[in-house]
Protein backbone atom coordinates (compact mmCIF):
# COMPACT_ATOMS: atom_id res chain seq x y z
CA UNK A 1 0.00 0.00 0.00
CA UNK A 2 2.76 2.38 1.08
CA UNK A 3 4.87 1.40 -1.90
CA UNK A 4 2.00 2.15 -4.26
CA UNK A 5 1.38 5.60 -2.77
CA UNK A 6 5.09 6.38 -2.79
CA UNK A 7 5.23 5.55 -6.45
CA UNK A 8 2.44 7.96 -7.36
CA UNK A 9 3.41 11.04 -9.24
CA UNK A 10 2.08 13.35 -6.57
CA UNK A 11 4.46 15.00 -4.12
CA UNK A 12 1.55 16.63 -2.30
CA UNK A 13 -1.91 15.12 -2.34
CA UNK A 14 -4.27 16.85 0.07
CA UNK A 15 -7.96 16.11 -0.03
CA UNK A 16 -10.78 17.74 1.92
CA UNK A 17 -8.65 19.77 4.30
CA UNK A 18 -10.69 21.50 6.99
CA UNK A 19 -9.48 23.81 9.70
CA UNK A 20 -11.49 25.99 12.05
CA UNK A 21 -9.85 28.18 14.67
CA UNK A 22 -11.57 28.53 18.03
CA UNK A 23 -14.72 26.91 16.62
CA UNK A 24 -15.67 30.01 14.64
CA UNK A 25 -13.01 31.06 12.12
CA UNK A 26 -13.23 28.69 9.13
CA UNK A 27 -9.74 28.98 7.66
CA UNK A 28 -10.05 25.98 5.31
CA UNK A 29 -13.34 24.47 4.16
CA UNK A 30 -12.48 21.39 2.18
CA UNK A 31 -9.34 22.26 0.25
CA UNK A 32 -8.01 19.87 -2.39
CA UNK A 33 -4.46 20.41 -3.59
CA UNK A 34 -2.37 18.13 -5.76
CA UNK A 35 1.27 18.89 -6.56
CA UNK A 36 3.14 16.71 -9.01
CA UNK A 37 6.68 15.59 -8.41
CA UNK A 38 9.28 17.77 -10.08
CA UNK A 39 7.10 20.82 -10.62
CA UNK A 40 6.98 24.29 -9.17
CA UNK A 41 3.55 24.81 -7.71
CA UNK A 42 2.24 28.22 -6.70
CA UNK A 43 -0.40 28.91 -4.10
CA UNK A 44 -2.20 32.22 -4.51
CA UNK A 45 -4.91 33.91 -2.58
CA UNK A 46 -5.88 37.14 -0.92
CA UNK A 47 -5.10 37.81 2.73
CA UNK A 48 -7.09 35.51 4.97
CA UNK A 49 -7.67 32.96 2.22
CA UNK A 50 -6.07 30.21 4.31
CA UNK A 51 -2.77 29.90 2.43
CA UNK A 52 -0.54 30.06 5.49
CA UNK A 53 -2.83 27.70 7.39
CA UNK A 54 -2.58 25.18 4.55
CA UNK A 55 1.21 25.46 4.49
CA UNK A 56 1.40 25.14 8.28
CA UNK A 57 -0.80 22.06 8.14
CA UNK A 58 1.53 20.55 5.55
CA UNK A 59 4.47 21.22 7.84
CA UNK A 60 2.71 19.90 11.00
CA UNK A 61 2.77 23.30 12.70
CA UNK A 62 -1.04 23.45 12.73
CA UNK A 63 -3.27 20.42 13.16
CA UNK A 64 -6.14 20.00 10.69
CA UNK A 65 -9.68 19.21 11.80
CA UNK A 66 -10.03 16.88 8.86
CA UNK A 67 -7.63 15.79 6.14
CA UNK A 68 -7.08 12.91 3.80
CA UNK A 69 -3.85 12.84 1.93
CA UNK A 70 -0.13 12.38 1.72
CA UNK A 71 3.13 14.27 1.39
CA UNK A 72 5.71 12.43 -0.72
CA UNK A 73 3.47 9.37 -0.60
CA UNK A 74 3.27 9.14 3.19
CA UNK A 75 0.78 10.55 5.71
CA UNK A 76 1.38 14.09 6.91
CA UNK A 77 3.97 14.36 9.65
CA UNK A 78 5.85 11.21 8.61
CA UNK A 79 9.35 11.77 9.99
CA UNK A 80 11.17 10.11 7.10
CA UNK A 81 9.43 12.43 4.68
CA UNK A 82 9.92 15.49 6.88
CA UNK A 83 13.62 14.65 6.77
CA UNK A 84 13.54 15.17 3.00
CA UNK A 85 11.34 18.27 3.10
CA UNK A 86 12.67 21.81 3.33
CA UNK A 87 10.59 24.67 4.69
CA UNK A 88 11.01 28.41 4.81
CA UNK A 89 8.12 30.04 6.69
CA UNK A 90 6.97 33.59 6.20
CA UNK A 91 8.37 36.07 8.74
CA UNK A 92 10.70 33.47 10.15
CA UNK A 93 12.70 34.32 13.24
CA UNK A 94 16.04 32.76 13.90
CA UNK A 95 17.85 32.75 17.25
CA UNK A 96 19.87 35.96 17.34
CA UNK A 97 22.57 34.35 19.50
CA UNK A 98 23.68 31.96 16.75
CA UNK A 99 26.01 32.74 13.87
CA UNK A 100 24.89 31.83 10.37
CA UNK A 101 27.10 28.74 10.37
CA UNK A 102 25.92 27.65 13.83
CA UNK A 103 22.31 28.11 12.79
CA UNK A 104 22.71 25.91 9.73
CA UNK A 105 24.50 23.29 11.80
CA UNK A 106 21.72 23.35 14.42
CA UNK A 107 18.87 23.01 11.94
CA UNK A 108 20.85 20.44 9.98
CA UNK A 109 21.20 18.36 13.14
CA UNK A 110 17.46 18.63 13.77
CA UNK A 111 16.90 17.48 10.18
CA UNK A 112 19.14 14.47 10.93
CA UNK A 113 21.76 15.46 8.38
CA UNK A 114 25.08 13.80 9.34
CA UNK A 115 27.64 16.25 10.69
CA UNK A 116 30.15 15.97 7.85
CA UNK A 117 27.42 16.31 5.23
CA UNK A 118 25.81 19.34 6.85
CA UNK A 119 29.15 21.13 7.20
CA UNK A 120 29.90 20.59 3.53
CA UNK A 121 26.42 21.57 2.38
CA UNK A 122 26.29 24.60 4.68
CA UNK A 123 29.49 25.93 3.15
CA UNK A 124 28.19 25.28 -0.37
CA UNK A 125 24.84 26.92 0.29
CA UNK A 126 26.33 29.96 1.99
CA UNK A 127 28.60 30.36 -1.02
CA UNK A 128 25.70 29.87 -3.45
CA UNK A 129 23.58 32.47 -1.63
CA UNK A 130 26.48 34.94 -1.30
CA UNK A 131 26.54 34.60 2.48
CA UNK A 132 29.98 33.07 3.05
CA UNK A 133 31.53 36.19 4.50
CA UNK A 134 28.70 36.44 7.03
CA UNK A 135 28.91 32.83 8.18
CA UNK A 136 30.58 33.73 11.47
CA UNK A 137 28.45 36.80 12.13
CA UNK A 138 25.62 36.52 14.63
CA UNK A 139 22.21 36.32 13.05
CA UNK A 140 21.06 39.24 15.21
CA UNK A 141 23.19 41.50 13.05
CA UNK A 142 21.74 40.31 9.73
CA UNK A 143 19.59 42.47 7.47
CA UNK A 144 16.18 41.22 6.36
CA UNK A 145 17.54 40.12 2.99
CA UNK A 146 20.39 38.23 4.64
CA UNK A 147 17.93 36.50 6.98
CA UNK A 148 15.90 35.46 3.98
CA UNK A 149 18.92 33.99 2.24
CA UNK A 150 19.93 32.18 5.42
CA UNK A 151 16.37 30.89 5.69
CA UNK A 152 16.64 29.49 2.18
CA UNK A 153 19.95 27.89 3.05
CA UNK A 154 18.47 26.12 6.10
CA UNK A 155 15.54 24.91 3.99
CA UNK A 156 17.93 23.45 1.44
CA UNK A 157 20.46 21.97 3.86
CA UNK A 158 18.93 18.48 3.83
CA UNK A 159 18.83 18.45 0.01
CA UNK A 160 15.04 18.19 0.12
CA UNK A 161 12.82 16.31 -2.33
CA UNK A 162 10.04 18.78 -1.51
CA UNK A 163 10.72 22.43 -0.80
CA UNK A 164 7.95 24.50 0.76
CA UNK A 165 8.60 28.23 0.56
CA UNK A 166 6.37 30.90 2.04
CA UNK A 167 7.15 34.30 0.52
CA UNK A 168 10.75 33.32 -0.35
CA UNK A 169 11.66 36.63 -1.99
CA UNK A 170 10.32 38.79 0.81
CA UNK A 171 12.96 41.38 1.70
CA UNK A 172 15.22 40.56 -1.23
CA UNK A 173 16.40 43.15 -3.74
CA UNK A 174 15.79 42.58 -7.49
CA UNK A 175 19.14 40.81 -7.89
CA UNK A 176 18.34 38.58 -4.95
CA UNK A 177 14.93 37.77 -6.38
CA UNK A 178 16.48 36.84 -9.69
CA UNK A 179 18.98 34.61 -7.89
CA UNK A 180 16.15 32.86 -6.05
CA UNK A 181 14.21 32.34 -9.28
CA UNK A 182 17.28 30.85 -10.91
CA UNK A 183 17.84 28.63 -7.90
CA UNK A 184 14.26 27.37 -8.02
CA UNK A 185 14.53 26.62 -11.73
CA UNK A 186 17.80 24.80 -11.11
CA UNK A 187 16.17 22.74 -8.37
CA UNK A 188 13.27 21.88 -10.64
CA UNK A 189 15.75 20.77 -13.30
CA UNK A 190 17.22 18.44 -10.66
CA UNK A 191 13.79 16.89 -10.12
CA UNK A 192 12.89 18.66 -6.88
CA UNK A 193 9.31 19.64 -6.14
CA UNK A 194 8.71 23.20 -5.02
CA UNK A 195 5.60 24.48 -3.30
CA UNK A 196 5.53 28.28 -3.38
CA UNK A 197 3.26 30.56 -1.46
CA UNK A 198 3.65 34.15 -2.60
CA UNK A 199 1.81 37.39 -3.04
CA UNK A 200 4.05 38.36 -5.94
CA UNK A 201 1.98 37.03 -8.83
CA UNK A 202 4.40 38.18 -11.49
CA UNK A 203 7.16 36.16 -9.83
CA UNK A 204 4.98 33.09 -9.55
CA UNK A 205 4.10 33.45 -13.20
CA UNK A 206 7.76 33.41 -14.12
CA UNK A 207 8.57 30.13 -12.39
CA UNK A 208 5.41 28.14 -11.65
CA UNK A 209 4.23 25.21 -13.71
CA UNK A 210 0.89 25.04 -11.96
CA UNK A 211 -0.97 27.25 -9.54
CA UNK A 212 -3.90 27.05 -7.21
CA UNK A 213 -6.02 30.03 -6.29
CA UNK A 214 -7.34 29.79 -2.76
CA UNK A 215 -10.22 32.04 -1.80
CA UNK A 216 -12.22 31.94 1.40
CA UNK A 217 -10.75 28.63 2.48
CA UNK A 218 -11.58 26.87 -0.80
CA UNK A 219 -9.66 26.25 -4.01
CA UNK A 220 -11.31 28.50 -6.56
CA UNK A 221 -9.11 27.43 -9.47
CA UNK A 222 -6.21 25.08 -10.00
CA UNK A 223 -4.20 24.09 -13.02
CA UNK A 224 -1.29 24.91 -15.27
CA UNK A 225 -0.78 28.54 -16.21
CA UNK A 226 -1.92 27.67 -19.76
CA UNK A 227 -5.07 26.03 -18.41
CA UNK A 228 -5.90 28.95 -16.17
CA UNK A 229 -5.35 31.53 -18.87
CA UNK A 230 -6.83 29.48 -21.71
CA UNK A 231 -10.19 31.19 -21.72
CA UNK A 232 -8.59 34.54 -21.26
CA UNK A 233 -6.65 34.71 -24.51
CA UNK A 234 -7.79 37.33 -26.97
CA UNK A 235 -6.73 38.42 -30.45
CA UNK A 236 -6.70 42.11 -31.34
CA UNK A 237 -6.91 42.85 -35.07
CA UNK A 238 -5.83 46.44 -35.60
CA UNK A 239 -7.10 48.07 -38.82
CA UNK A 240 -6.39 51.30 -40.67
CA UNK A 241 -10.12 52.02 -40.87
CA UNK A 242 -11.52 54.98 -38.99
CA UNK A 243 -14.98 53.49 -38.65
CA UNK A 244 -15.85 49.80 -38.54
CA UNK A 245 -19.59 50.21 -38.09
CA UNK A 246 -20.20 48.82 -41.58
CA UNK A 247 -18.76 45.47 -40.55
CA UNK A 248 -19.89 45.43 -36.93
CA UNK A 249 -22.80 43.08 -37.50
CA UNK A 250 -20.70 40.59 -39.47
CA UNK A 251 -17.91 40.74 -36.89
CA UNK A 252 -20.34 40.07 -34.04
CA UNK A 253 -21.75 37.08 -35.94
CA UNK A 254 -18.21 35.61 -35.76
CA UNK A 255 -18.27 35.99 -31.98
CA UNK A 256 -15.96 39.02 -31.91
CA UNK A 257 -16.55 42.64 -31.08
CA UNK A 258 -15.54 46.01 -32.47
CA UNK A 259 -13.61 48.43 -30.33
CA UNK A 260 -12.82 51.64 -32.28
CA UNK A 261 -10.55 50.64 -35.12
CA UNK A 262 -9.89 47.22 -33.59
CA UNK A 263 -11.66 43.88 -33.75
CA UNK A 264 -11.32 41.79 -30.60
CA UNK A 265 -11.85 38.06 -30.49
CA UNK A 266 -11.76 36.32 -27.12
CA UNK A 267 -10.65 32.69 -27.08
CA UNK A 268 -8.22 30.34 -28.79
CA UNK A 269 -10.07 29.80 -32.06
CA UNK A 270 -7.49 30.61 -34.75
CA UNK A 271 -9.92 29.56 -37.49
CA UNK A 272 -12.19 32.35 -36.41
CA UNK A 273 -9.26 34.76 -36.47
CA UNK A 274 -8.65 33.82 -40.10
CA UNK A 275 -12.35 34.11 -40.81
CA UNK A 276 -12.34 37.62 -39.40
CA UNK A 277 -9.25 38.55 -41.42
CA UNK A 278 -10.97 37.26 -44.57
CA UNK A 279 -14.07 39.24 -43.67
CA UNK A 280 -12.14 42.47 -43.19
CA UNK A 281 -9.98 41.98 -46.25
CA UNK A 282 -13.12 41.19 -48.28
CA UNK A 283 -14.37 44.67 -47.37
CA UNK A 284 -10.97 46.06 -48.41
CA UNK A 285 -10.12 47.09 -44.89
CA UNK A 286 -6.37 47.35 -44.35
CA UNK A 287 -5.14 45.18 -41.48
CA UNK A 288 -2.20 46.70 -39.62
CA UNK A 289 -1.55 43.94 -37.10
CA UNK A 290 -2.93 40.84 -35.42
CA UNK A 291 -1.84 40.56 -31.79
CA UNK A 292 -2.59 37.59 -29.56
CA UNK A 293 -2.84 38.65 -25.94
CA UNK A 294 -2.79 36.20 -23.07
CA UNK A 295 -4.03 37.47 -19.71
CA UNK A 296 -1.48 37.64 -16.96
CA UNK A 297 -1.80 35.54 -13.82
CA UNK A 298 -2.61 38.73 -12.00
CA UNK A 299 -5.54 39.38 -14.33
CA UNK A 300 -6.74 35.80 -13.90
CA UNK A 301 -6.38 36.14 -10.14
CA UNK A 302 -8.31 39.41 -10.07
CA UNK A 303 -10.98 37.93 -12.31
CA UNK A 304 -11.30 34.89 -10.00
CA UNK A 305 -11.44 37.15 -7.00
CA UNK A 306 -14.17 39.20 -8.67
CA UNK A 307 -16.15 36.08 -9.57
CA UNK A 308 -16.01 34.89 -5.99
CA UNK A 309 -17.19 38.28 -4.81
CA UNK A 310 -14.12 38.93 -2.66
CA UNK A 311 -12.45 41.73 -4.60
Amino acid sequence: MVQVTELTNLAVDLVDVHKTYKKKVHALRGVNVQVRRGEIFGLLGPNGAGKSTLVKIMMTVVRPDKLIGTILGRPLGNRKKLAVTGYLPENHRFPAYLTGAQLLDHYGALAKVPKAVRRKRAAELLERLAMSRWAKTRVGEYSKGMMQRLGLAQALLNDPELLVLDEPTDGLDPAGRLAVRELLQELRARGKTIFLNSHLLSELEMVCDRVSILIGGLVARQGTLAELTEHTVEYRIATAAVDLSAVREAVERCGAKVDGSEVILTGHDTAKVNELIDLLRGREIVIESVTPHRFSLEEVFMETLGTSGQS
Partner: protein
Amino acid sequence: MQMWALIVDSLRHTLDRKIFWVMLAISVVIAAAMACIGFDETGVTVFFKWHFDDPAFQVGTAAQRSFATEILVYWLTDKYLGFVGVLVALVSTASIFPSVMESGTVDVVLAKPLSRTKLFVGKYFGCMTFVLLQSAVFVGLTFLVAGWRWKQWLWAYFWAVPLFVILFSYIYACCVFFAVWMRGSLGPLLLSLGCWVLFFGVQSTNSVVHVLPMVPQDSALVKVTSAARWAVPRTQDIPHIAARLIDPEIADKMLDRVSFDNMPAKDQEDMGRVMEGTKTVMSFDMAASLASSLGIEAIILILALGRFVRRDF
Protein backbone atom coordinates in the same frame (compact mmCIF):
# COMPACT_ATOMS: atom_id res chain seq x y z
CA MET B 1 21.87 13.95 17.42
CA GLN B 2 18.61 15.91 17.75
CA MET B 3 18.54 15.80 21.56
CA TRP B 4 22.15 16.92 21.75
CA ALA B 5 21.43 19.77 19.30
CA LEU B 6 18.49 20.92 21.44
CA ILE B 7 20.51 20.83 24.65
CA VAL B 8 23.41 22.69 23.05
CA ASP B 9 21.00 25.28 21.65
CA SER B 10 19.41 25.83 25.07
CA LEU B 11 22.85 26.26 26.57
CA ARG B 12 23.84 28.76 23.90
CA HIS B 13 20.61 30.64 24.51
CA THR B 14 21.21 30.92 28.25
CA LEU B 15 24.94 31.62 27.95
CA ASP B 16 24.06 34.48 25.62
CA ARG B 17 22.27 36.24 28.45
CA LYS B 18 24.27 38.77 30.43
CA ILE B 19 22.77 37.55 33.69
CA PHE B 20 24.73 34.30 33.40
CA TRP B 21 28.01 36.20 33.28
CA VAL B 22 26.88 38.46 36.12
CA MET B 23 26.22 35.37 38.23
CA LEU B 24 29.57 33.94 37.27
CA ALA B 25 31.21 37.18 38.34
CA ILE B 26 29.31 37.07 41.65
CA SER B 27 30.46 33.47 42.15
CA VAL B 28 34.07 34.58 41.66
CA VAL B 29 33.58 37.47 44.09
CA ILE B 30 32.12 35.11 46.72
CA ALA B 31 35.00 32.68 46.22
CA ALA B 32 37.48 35.55 46.48
CA ALA B 33 35.78 36.79 49.67
CA MET B 34 36.04 33.28 51.13
CA ALA B 35 39.71 33.16 50.18
CA CYS B 36 40.37 36.30 52.18
CA ILE B 37 40.08 34.23 55.34
CA GLY B 38 42.53 31.39 55.81
CA PHE B 39 43.04 28.87 58.58
CA ASP B 40 46.22 27.05 59.48
CA GLU B 41 47.72 25.11 62.37
CA THR B 42 48.13 28.24 64.47
CA GLY B 43 45.06 30.37 63.78
CA VAL B 44 43.49 32.69 61.24
CA THR B 45 44.99 34.73 58.38
CA VAL B 46 43.01 37.66 56.97
CA PHE B 47 43.63 39.11 53.50
CA PHE B 48 46.68 36.83 53.12
CA LYS B 49 48.63 39.21 55.35
CA TRP B 50 47.42 39.61 58.91
CA HIS B 51 47.77 36.51 61.02
CA PHE B 52 46.06 35.98 64.36
CA ASP B 53 47.10 33.11 66.60
CA ASP B 54 43.92 31.59 68.00
CA PRO B 55 43.77 28.02 69.28
CA ALA B 56 39.96 27.97 68.84
CA PHE B 57 40.30 28.53 65.10
CA GLN B 58 43.20 26.28 64.33
CA VAL B 59 42.61 23.84 61.52
CA GLY B 60 40.66 20.83 62.71
CA THR B 61 39.05 22.37 65.76
CA ALA B 62 35.30 22.04 66.22
CA ALA B 63 34.82 25.80 65.91
CA GLN B 64 36.80 26.02 62.69
CA ARG B 65 35.01 23.05 61.18
CA SER B 66 31.65 24.40 62.28
CA PHE B 67 32.49 27.79 60.74
CA ALA B 68 33.36 26.17 57.40
CA THR B 69 30.36 23.89 57.20
CA GLU B 70 27.95 26.60 58.29
CA ILE B 71 29.20 28.92 55.57
CA LEU B 72 28.98 26.18 52.95
CA VAL B 73 25.71 24.64 54.07
CA TYR B 74 23.68 27.48 55.55
CA TRP B 75 24.84 30.52 53.62
CA LEU B 76 26.02 29.22 50.27
CA THR B 77 23.72 26.23 49.76
CA ASP B 78 20.57 27.33 51.54
CA LYS B 79 20.56 31.09 51.19
CA TYR B 80 22.59 31.73 48.05
CA LEU B 81 21.87 28.71 45.84
CA GLY B 82 18.46 27.97 47.34
CA PHE B 83 17.13 31.48 46.90
CA VAL B 84 19.32 33.80 44.79
CA GLY B 85 20.47 30.95 42.55
CA VAL B 86 16.95 29.69 41.86
CA LEU B 87 15.69 33.20 41.23
CA VAL B 88 18.49 34.01 38.77
CA ALA B 89 18.21 30.63 37.05
CA LEU B 90 14.48 31.22 36.60
CA VAL B 91 15.08 34.65 35.08
CA SER B 92 17.77 33.17 32.81
CA THR B 93 15.63 30.32 31.55
CA ALA B 94 12.10 31.72 31.63
CA SER B 95 12.36 32.89 28.02
CA ILE B 96 13.50 29.54 26.58
CA PHE B 97 10.08 27.96 26.06
CA PRO B 98 8.32 31.17 24.97
CA SER B 99 11.07 31.81 22.40
CA VAL B 100 10.81 28.25 21.08
CA MET B 101 7.06 28.72 20.61
CA GLU B 102 7.38 32.10 18.92
CA SER B 103 5.69 32.28 15.54
CA GLY B 104 8.35 32.06 12.87
CA THR B 105 10.72 30.11 15.13
CA VAL B 106 8.54 27.16 16.00
CA ASP B 107 7.52 26.72 12.35
CA VAL B 108 11.06 25.93 11.27
CA VAL B 109 11.67 23.50 14.14
CA LEU B 110 8.38 21.61 13.82
CA ALA B 111 8.97 21.14 10.11
CA LYS B 112 12.03 19.05 10.99
CA PRO B 113 11.72 15.29 11.59
CA LEU B 114 11.47 15.89 15.31
CA SER B 115 8.61 14.94 17.59
CA ARG B 116 7.08 17.64 19.73
CA THR B 117 7.72 15.50 22.79
CA LYS B 118 11.41 15.33 21.96
CA LEU B 119 11.51 19.08 21.40
CA PHE B 120 9.85 19.68 24.77
CA VAL B 121 12.07 17.24 26.63
CA GLY B 122 15.21 18.49 24.87
CA LYS B 123 14.52 22.08 25.76
CA TYR B 124 13.64 21.17 29.35
CA PHE B 125 16.81 19.18 29.86
CA GLY B 126 18.78 21.92 28.11
CA CYS B 127 17.65 24.31 30.82
CA MET B 128 18.47 21.78 33.52
CA THR B 129 21.93 21.31 32.03
CA PHE B 130 22.48 25.05 32.17
CA VAL B 131 21.44 25.20 35.82
CA LEU B 132 23.58 22.16 36.58
CA LEU B 133 26.61 23.85 35.01
CA GLN B 134 25.94 27.14 36.73
CA SER B 135 25.67 25.50 40.16
CA ALA B 136 28.59 23.13 39.51
CA VAL B 137 30.84 26.09 38.70
CA PHE B 138 29.77 27.86 41.89
CA VAL B 139 30.04 24.81 44.13
CA GLY B 140 33.31 23.72 42.53
CA LEU B 141 34.83 27.15 42.98
CA THR B 142 33.76 27.54 46.62
CA PHE B 143 34.73 23.91 47.36
CA LEU B 144 38.26 24.57 46.10
CA VAL B 145 38.57 27.75 48.14
CA ALA B 146 37.27 26.00 51.28
CA GLY B 147 39.80 23.23 50.74
CA TRP B 148 42.68 25.54 49.91
CA ARG B 149 42.18 28.27 52.51
CA TRP B 150 40.13 26.54 55.22
CA LYS B 151 41.63 23.07 54.85
CA GLN B 152 38.11 21.62 54.71
CA TRP B 153 37.81 19.27 51.74
CA LEU B 154 34.12 18.72 52.22
CA TRP B 155 33.32 16.38 49.32
CA ALA B 156 29.72 15.99 50.48
CA TYR B 157 29.29 19.68 49.64
CA PHE B 158 28.82 18.57 46.02
CA TRP B 159 25.38 17.26 47.03
CA ALA B 160 24.38 20.93 46.76
CA VAL B 161 24.57 20.70 42.95
CA PRO B 162 21.90 18.04 42.29
CA LEU B 163 19.76 19.33 45.15
CA PHE B 164 19.84 22.83 43.71
CA VAL B 165 18.89 21.47 40.29
CA ILE B 166 16.00 19.54 41.86
CA LEU B 167 14.80 22.61 43.74
CA PHE B 168 14.99 24.70 40.58
CA SER B 169 13.17 22.01 38.60
CA TYR B 170 10.17 22.18 41.00
CA ILE B 171 9.68 25.86 40.19
CA TYR B 172 10.72 25.66 36.54
CA ALA B 173 8.10 22.97 35.87
CA CYS B 174 5.48 25.57 36.85
CA CYS B 175 7.16 28.16 34.61
CA VAL B 176 7.02 25.74 31.65
CA PHE B 177 3.41 24.85 32.43
CA PHE B 178 2.37 28.50 32.23
CA ALA B 179 4.61 29.15 29.21
CA VAL B 180 2.79 26.61 27.03
CA TRP B 181 -0.50 28.38 27.72
CA MET B 182 0.65 31.98 27.42
CA ARG B 183 2.68 34.21 25.15
CA GLY B 184 5.79 35.99 26.42
CA SER B 185 8.06 35.09 29.30
CA LEU B 186 7.11 37.62 31.97
CA GLY B 187 3.73 36.06 32.79
CA PRO B 188 5.08 32.53 33.26
CA LEU B 189 8.00 33.90 35.28
CA LEU B 190 5.76 35.84 37.67
CA LEU B 191 3.26 33.00 37.97
CA SER B 192 5.99 30.49 38.73
CA LEU B 193 7.36 32.82 41.39
CA GLY B 194 3.81 32.94 42.73
CA CYS B 195 3.82 29.13 42.85
CA TRP B 196 7.08 29.19 44.76
CA VAL B 197 5.51 31.54 47.31
CA LEU B 198 2.45 29.27 47.43
CA PHE B 199 4.58 26.17 48.07
CA PHE B 200 6.44 28.10 50.76
CA GLY B 201 3.15 29.23 52.30
CA VAL B 202 1.66 25.74 52.37
CA GLN B 203 4.77 24.23 53.98
CA SER B 204 5.19 27.12 56.42
CA THR B 205 1.57 26.89 57.49
CA ASN B 206 2.05 23.22 58.22
CA SER B 207 5.22 23.94 60.18
CA VAL B 208 3.51 26.69 62.16
CA VAL B 209 0.46 24.63 63.11
CA HIS B 210 2.78 21.83 64.18
CA VAL B 211 4.61 24.02 66.66
CA LEU B 212 1.79 26.24 67.95
CA PRO B 213 1.13 25.15 71.54
CA MET B 214 -2.58 26.06 71.30
CA VAL B 215 -3.20 23.77 68.28
CA PRO B 216 -3.83 20.13 69.27
CA GLN B 217 -1.68 17.82 67.15
CA ASP B 218 -4.65 15.59 66.34
CA SER B 219 -6.81 18.51 65.12
CA ALA B 220 -8.28 18.71 61.61
CA LEU B 221 -6.14 21.78 60.92
CA VAL B 222 -2.93 19.84 61.45
CA LYS B 223 -4.23 16.96 59.31
CA VAL B 224 -5.30 19.25 56.48
CA THR B 225 -2.04 21.24 56.41
CA SER B 226 -0.02 18.03 56.62
CA ALA B 227 -1.89 16.63 53.63
CA ALA B 228 -1.46 19.93 51.75
CA ARG B 229 2.28 19.78 52.42
CA TRP B 230 2.41 16.52 50.46
CA ALA B 231 0.34 17.98 47.64
CA VAL B 232 2.98 20.54 46.59
CA PRO B 233 6.67 20.19 45.74
CA ARG B 234 8.43 20.38 49.10
CA THR B 235 10.84 23.21 48.34
CA GLN B 236 11.57 23.87 52.00
CA ASP B 237 12.84 20.34 52.52
CA ILE B 238 15.75 20.82 50.12
CA PRO B 239 17.96 22.92 52.46
CA HIS B 240 17.36 20.40 55.24
CA ILE B 241 18.22 17.52 52.92
CA ALA B 242 21.35 19.39 51.89
CA ALA B 243 22.31 19.94 55.53
CA ARG B 244 21.74 16.27 56.35
CA LEU B 245 23.77 15.03 53.40
CA ILE B 246 26.61 17.52 53.66
CA ASP B 247 26.97 17.51 57.43
CA PRO B 248 24.45 15.33 59.29
CA GLU B 249 25.21 17.10 62.57
CA ILE B 250 24.68 20.65 61.42
CA ALA B 251 20.87 20.63 61.21
CA ASP B 252 20.53 19.41 64.76
CA LYS B 253 23.21 21.79 65.91
CA MET B 254 21.42 24.71 64.37
CA LEU B 255 18.33 23.95 66.41
CA ASP B 256 20.11 22.94 69.60
CA ARG B 257 22.18 26.10 69.53
CA VAL B 258 19.14 28.31 70.08
CA SER B 259 19.14 29.40 73.69
CA PHE B 260 16.09 30.45 75.70
CA ASP B 261 17.93 31.01 78.95
CA ASN B 262 17.08 34.70 79.14
CA MET B 263 13.36 34.12 78.75
CA PRO B 264 10.83 33.83 81.59
CA ALA B 265 10.08 30.25 82.64
CA LYS B 266 6.67 30.16 80.91
CA ASP B 267 8.17 31.36 77.61
CA GLN B 268 11.01 28.88 77.94
CA GLU B 269 8.44 26.10 78.25
CA ASP B 270 6.54 27.32 75.17
CA MET B 271 9.70 27.69 73.12
CA GLY B 272 10.80 24.26 74.12
CA ARG B 273 7.57 22.90 72.64
CA VAL B 274 8.16 25.01 69.53
CA MET B 275 11.60 23.46 69.11
CA GLU B 276 10.20 19.98 69.60
CA GLY B 277 7.53 20.70 66.97
CA THR B 278 10.16 22.07 64.59
CA LYS B 279 12.26 18.96 65.04
CA THR B 280 9.20 16.84 64.31
CA VAL B 281 8.53 18.76 61.09
CA MET B 282 12.17 18.51 60.07
CA SER B 283 12.44 14.81 60.72
CA PHE B 284 10.86 13.95 57.39
CA ASP B 285 11.82 11.04 55.20
CA MET B 286 14.20 12.36 52.55
CA ALA B 287 13.35 9.77 49.92
CA ALA B 288 9.61 10.26 50.42
CA SER B 289 9.98 14.03 50.24
CA LEU B 290 11.98 13.89 47.01
CA ALA B 291 9.78 11.20 45.45
CA SER B 292 6.51 13.01 46.16
CA SER B 293 7.90 16.36 44.99
CA LEU B 294 9.36 14.91 41.80
CA GLY B 295 6.08 13.09 41.22
CA ILE B 296 4.14 16.33 41.45
CA GLU B 297 6.69 17.97 39.15
CA ALA B 298 6.22 15.10 36.67
CA ILE B 299 2.43 15.62 36.73
CA ILE B 300 2.87 19.35 36.05
CA LEU B 301 5.26 18.59 33.19
CA ILE B 302 2.97 15.94 31.68
CA LEU B 303 0.11 18.44 31.67
CA ALA B 304 2.38 21.02 30.02
CA LEU B 305 3.60 18.47 27.48
CA GLY B 306 0.02 17.50 26.66
CA ARG B 307 -0.79 21.09 25.83
CA PHE B 308 2.48 21.58 23.90
CA VAL B 309 1.89 18.49 21.76
CA ARG B 310 -1.72 19.33 20.90
CA ARG B 311 -1.68 23.07 20.37
CA ASP B 312 -1.42 24.94 17.08
CA PHE B 313 1.37 27.42 16.57
